[in-house]
């Protein structure tokens, strides 16, 4: 959309004196480009357009016209949700005043302040928001690479066809077969995710293949909601799940996709289905933009989500290195709102308020057995720091667990409405 000078002045005056924007007369509206249409990017796009009421030119770049949420994709594996229920289009985002471009961002020129798309388009920006999720660290699991082996040993850690593939493989396992998961090292997307997935796989196997075994090979010596998962597995899937921590070889795993074998501490074992969740780094475009550090993640200022490498760039969600917040959809959504407030204040002169962040992660262990963990956060000079937290208790009664599960369904409806309209 292009405005001529007269029309621009006219609409600005019509918008009223509330707009005390530090804008230059005659120049186009300030432009914000957002890369990645998930929990961070879609939320940021919608709130920027909504809250600035037309004062900003907002463009969202997302490769997939239909987005599949990674959160709740385990519930699809467990048979609790239809795949389509995880999918969302961008019609309402566009209707809310956002220019949505379905293309892949392939380049960022921070000096020229432009983004290049695979289709050749070049988008200039005043502020850039990067919310590209995760990428996988090559060589993180010996014997496995995403390009060569994801069809044999799926990661299913970016929702979509991979999730469908893993579900089909679990359901096709031979009677009494072995499901193995190579769990990721910290930090990674959705800390309880691998263990909720184990619960969902166990739920499927309990019904279809009750003599099957589940093996978790874990490089970590502890993990999110561990006591709750262990209690739940004992209660619902007694004897089916075996967790192998680093002490017993969980950190020294090699996989052989060609022969469907895994090697744990030198010992070769045949498996029937193998879910490899590799080590992770920031989404590729964050690497390309040069805002990541040696850790592979993009450091940001705790009070704004602004990149430490560039004051015109913000990094949200999984890709950012911010401190205590887990990499989750809820966290990305929460961070988006702080970034939007900061960007609006910078570009339109709207009021800025102190940053507050929140996160809650719900997990399903078995039918109507839901648990949650959450915290609130505030910025300190060093990092986003946890200030208060809670977690479901072991031994909670069935009514509370059911209420927690129902609450998680409400949350899914709420956050997806917040992201996609």
């Amino acid at each position: 959309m292009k405005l001529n000078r007269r029309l621009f002045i006219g609409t600005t005056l019509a918008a009223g004196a509330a707009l005390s924007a530090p804008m230059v007369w005659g120049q186009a509206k300030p432009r914000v480009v957002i890369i990645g249409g998930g929990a961070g990017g879609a939320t940021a796009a919608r709130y920027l357009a909504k809250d600035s009421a037309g004062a900003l030119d907002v463009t969202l770049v997302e490769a997939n016209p239909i987005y599949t949420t990674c959160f709740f994709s385990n519930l699809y594996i467990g048979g609790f949700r239809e795949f389509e229920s995880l999918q969302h289009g961008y019609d309402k985002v566009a209707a809310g005043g956002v220019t949505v471009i379905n293309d892949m961002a392939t380049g960022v020129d921070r000096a020229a302040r432009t983004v290049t798309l695979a289709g050749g388009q070049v988008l200039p920006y005043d502020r850039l928001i990067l919310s590209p999720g995760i990428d996988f660290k090559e060589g993180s699991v010996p014997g496995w690479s995403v390009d060569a082996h994801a069809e044999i040993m799926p990661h299913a850690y970016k929702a979509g066809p991979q999730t469908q593939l893993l579900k089909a493989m679990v359901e096709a396992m031979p009677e009494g077969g072995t499901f193995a998961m190579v769990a990721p090292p910290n930090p990674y997307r959705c800390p309880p995710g691998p263990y909720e997935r184990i619960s969902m796989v166990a739920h499927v196997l309990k019904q279809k293949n009750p003599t099957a075994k589940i093996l978790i090979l874990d490089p970590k010596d502890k993990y999110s909601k561990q006591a709750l998962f262990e209690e739940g597995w004992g209660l619902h899937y007694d004897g089916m799940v075996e967790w192998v921590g680093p002490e017993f070889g969980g950190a020294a795993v090699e996989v052989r996709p060609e022969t469907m074998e895994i090697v744990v501490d030198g010992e070769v074992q045949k498996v029937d289905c193998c879910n490899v969740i590799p080590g992770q780094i920031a989404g590729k475009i964050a690497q390309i933009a040069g805002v990541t550090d040696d850790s592979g993640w993009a450091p940001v200022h705790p009070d704004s989500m602004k990149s430490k490498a560039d004051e015109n760039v913000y990094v949200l969600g999984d890709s950012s290195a911010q401190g205590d917040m887990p990499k989750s959809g809820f966290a990305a959504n929460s961070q988006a709102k702080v970034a939007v407030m900061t960007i609006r204040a910078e570009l339109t002169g709207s009021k800025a308020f102190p940053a507050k962040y929140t996160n809650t992660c719900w997990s399903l262990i078995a039918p109507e057995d839901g648990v949650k963990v959450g915290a609130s956060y505030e910025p300190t000079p060093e990092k986003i720091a946890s200030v208060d937290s809670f977690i479901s208790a072991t031994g909670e009664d069935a009514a509370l667990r059911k209420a927690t599960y129902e609450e998680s369904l409400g949350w899914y409806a709420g956050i997806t409405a917040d992201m996609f309209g």
Partner: protein
Amino acid sequence: MGGRFPSLLALFALAAVAAGAEEIGDAERGEALFKKQCSACHQIGEGAKNRVGPRLNGLFGRRAGALEDFTYSKSMARMGADGLTWTLETLDAYVHNPKALVSGTRMNYRGMADPEARLALLAYIREWSDKPRDIPEAEPTAIMTDHAVDPAILAIQGDPDYGAYLSSECTTCHQADGSDQGIPSVTGWPEEDFVVAMHAYKDRLRPHPVMQMMAGRLSNDEIAALAAYFATLK
């Protein structure tokens, strides 16, 4: 002030325990109040049955919404599942202003403002519940702190702009269009009900852990700002 206030309350509560905690109010007066204000809907005593409202025998120590032969409002059932249990403290808050504790309660009662009258009523109701003096493992029934929201807090005029920003934390779960799918709607509430409910979470009178955390870090001004903003949404 901030530091001294709770400890005084604690002292008060301790004093109540030390005194044996047997009498929480004038049960005879409470019986008269019950007949006048409650008995159209509730029964209590020998042979009490559910009527419009549930029977109130054994109320102290009972989980909210727990009688299997009574159909509660969705809101009451949810509070029960979240862990709301009827104690002197929660009952006092509920009788004072039912919506402070259970927003969508079907109990069509505007509340009892006089604290002494409430304690009298609850003393009468407690006659028909287990008491620690009879069953030592029963929940203490005579411990309470003051939960009423200071009128000065209710009088704060919130900044709706600040509320709009703060509300973006709420809309991750509570839908801005007011739909209620497993998580209740928070839009279009009377401002005072909103403020009272948020303080009930802040004081941990309402049981939900996410909401206790969210409300716990909001200042009085921030709660007022949110109330002002959400009241503007239809």
